[in-house]
């Protein structure tokens, strides 16, 4: 029975998602454009890897409104991010910050690329010589 309840709960959770609502959109198109681009990099905390720009969860709506309020109050983009991170932590950023525990995350792709290229070059060098090669 417990599993049934969880199942039903999950079903209800999975209602379709909608993005920004008409009532939220700012009159100033320049501010709205900034709000949109900020929203796209903020995570809806109760969703699964969705940005608040894509989500219809009420929490996402609240965040969208907060972002717009801060922008209207004259905050810069960075100030908005700081404001939101101060309240919700790094979890809210879809682009994780570069800090001590994410160094590996940011460095890994390029370190791995160098490593893989190095191994490939080593493989090429270690080969027996091609016949007829000078």
């Amino acid at each position: 029975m417990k599993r049934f309840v969880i199942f039903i709960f999950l079903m209800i959770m999975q209602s379709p998602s909608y993005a920004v609502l008409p009532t939220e959109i700012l009159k100033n198109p320049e501010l709205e454009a900034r709000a949109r681009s900020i929203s796209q990099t903020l995570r809806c905390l109760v969703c699964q890897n969705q940005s608040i720009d894509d989500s219809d969860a009420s929490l996402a709506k609240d965040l969208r409104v907060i972002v717009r309020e801060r922008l209207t109050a004259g905050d810069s983009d960075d100030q908005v991010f700081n404001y939101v991170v101060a309240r919700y932590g790094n979890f809210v950023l879809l682009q994780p910050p570069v800090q001590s525990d994410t160094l590996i995350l940011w460095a890994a792709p390029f370190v791995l690329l160098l490593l893989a290229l190095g191994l490939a070059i080593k493989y090429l060098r270690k080969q027996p010589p091609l016949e007829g090669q000078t």
Partner: protein
Amino acid sequence: MITELGHFALLLALMTSIIQATLPLYGAHRQDRALMQLASVCGVASFLLVGLAFASLIYAFVMDDFSVKLVVTSSEIAKPLIYKITGVWANHEGSMLLWVLILVIFAAAIALFGINLPAPLKARVLAVQGMIATAFIAFLVFTSNPFERLAIVPPDGNGMNPLLQDPGLAAHPPCLYLGYVGFSVAFSFAVAALIEGKVDATWARWVRPWVLIAWCFLTMGITLGSFWAYYILGWGGWWFWDPVENVSFMPWLAGTALLHSALVVERRHALVSWTILLAILTFSLSLIGTFVVRSGVLTSVHSFATDPTRGTFILMIIMVATGGALLLYALRIPTVRQGAPFAVISRESSLLLNNVLLVVAAATVFIGTFYPLLIDLIGKDKISIGAPYYNRTFIPLFIPVLIAMVIGPFLKWKRDDLGPALKKLKSPLAIAVIIAFVVAAFSLGNKILTASAIGLSAWIVLGSFWVLAKRIKLGTVATAQSFAILRSTPRAYFGLLFAHVGLGLVVGAIATVTTWQEENILAMKPGDQTSISTYGVKLTKIEQVPGPNYNAERGTFELSSAGKTFTVLTAERRFYPLQQSLSNQTGIRTNLISNIYIAMGEADQSGAWTVRIYYHPLAPWLWIGGFIMAFGGFVSLSDRRFRVGAHA
């Protein structure tokens, strides 16, 4: 009764799989023909038994047998027949049974079509397949039994997730699984080769078609999944870097690398040990994909199951399969003869570069997917990784792939010079650069990145056609002679052409749709007019429409161009009372160049409805391109070299 029959068949399949996994190995060791032959017999028997089990589960769903627990949790009487059938794999137990079914289909195919495979190799390959089948059938029987009965039979079921009641999603899991599981064949061949300690040309010729099949289906599966997300989620997104998407993308990247390195083994007998390692890794990534989706370890829309015992079981399978195979690799790879040498500038090197970049790209997606889990385990912070991360890491890694994929086919095997190869590509390069400049000029220099991406797309598309044009000596000899060469050109050339052109089209579509999409989100009442791009949109009416197991609010929209109505679109919001949940039926109008996309939202107090209208230029080519890629794979598969019984 039929359910018990299915259950019993599954238990028998466990027995035949255990036999298939053990005795033939011993037989291959002792050169005992009868024991080796047993592998094929068991492979076919397992296929028939799992097929029977699967059929009986379909029967239970179609007949609304609510004494079966699975039917109760994921079906209902009012559901249309097609979704009763597809509902079989729209849940954990059923989808794992489908996984196993596909696995035994592949094994039976090896047993039946592998007539000219050397008997010991065949026995060993099938034995490894038997081990995988044993593990997964045991997983089904002991942790996820689809045939479990209920003591008290409810009058109706709980229904199925409305988002999954969709034709796109009916085909998506089987395609994806054909891809995932298809890589098991490459894995089994790799392990069998390691046991034998030798890899010859026959081996490579045998592995490549299986890798191709798996790759084609995985490509289609990912494309279908992306399309499904696009039209059902209601805001026009088509790729989210969601963990569940990522875990299907990783085996695709590794599988694409494998496809190319297996080519080097087949043609030149080089990169042998690397290809074996890659085959093991690709299937491990497929297993990880299954694990992530089935265990719900990274929560996502797709995790229906949150039972940790299942996750642990699959994790054990992954560890034993990957760990065992890697151990065997470490022990046996020194005995595998090293490949033929090749120069730094050669076809082989270009394919090696392809492998380096694709594997690092796959590793990047892997790190991005699992790093939040690691940070969470350390316990100090919680982080999210989304599109911005991949835009800064994955895309820079993939751009060299896109540039090099055109040059590679122009290089000769063994040794070549870059100069003459590039000289042959003068024209496509010139046209691509001109296109990029034209786009940049038209956007007044604001869209340099988009312009470069479109130039890159043109480079790939034109450069790929150039391979064929050069081969048939178009323009340098008489047309009739060109045509004659064209007719004798192996299908593999056309396969390359389609697959590469498909990717080029996807790149162009991504650049275009992300840069020039338009949206119009507003509240509309019937009779209201608005516009998107150059089109007029009028909401003519909103009505209630009853469906078989839902009630829909349907909005009807007239699209007009220059004041003339040219089509009528409907978009629905469906409410499923049984599940108390909503789904979206978006209205999409495509002319194959762009899409107009309308999704209905909620009504406010004043009786106005939230309507989302999008204009997506070139969006259709995201998926058409994906299917062209898969089509290229199938064309390549039909090449003479791969036909059963053909000797190269």
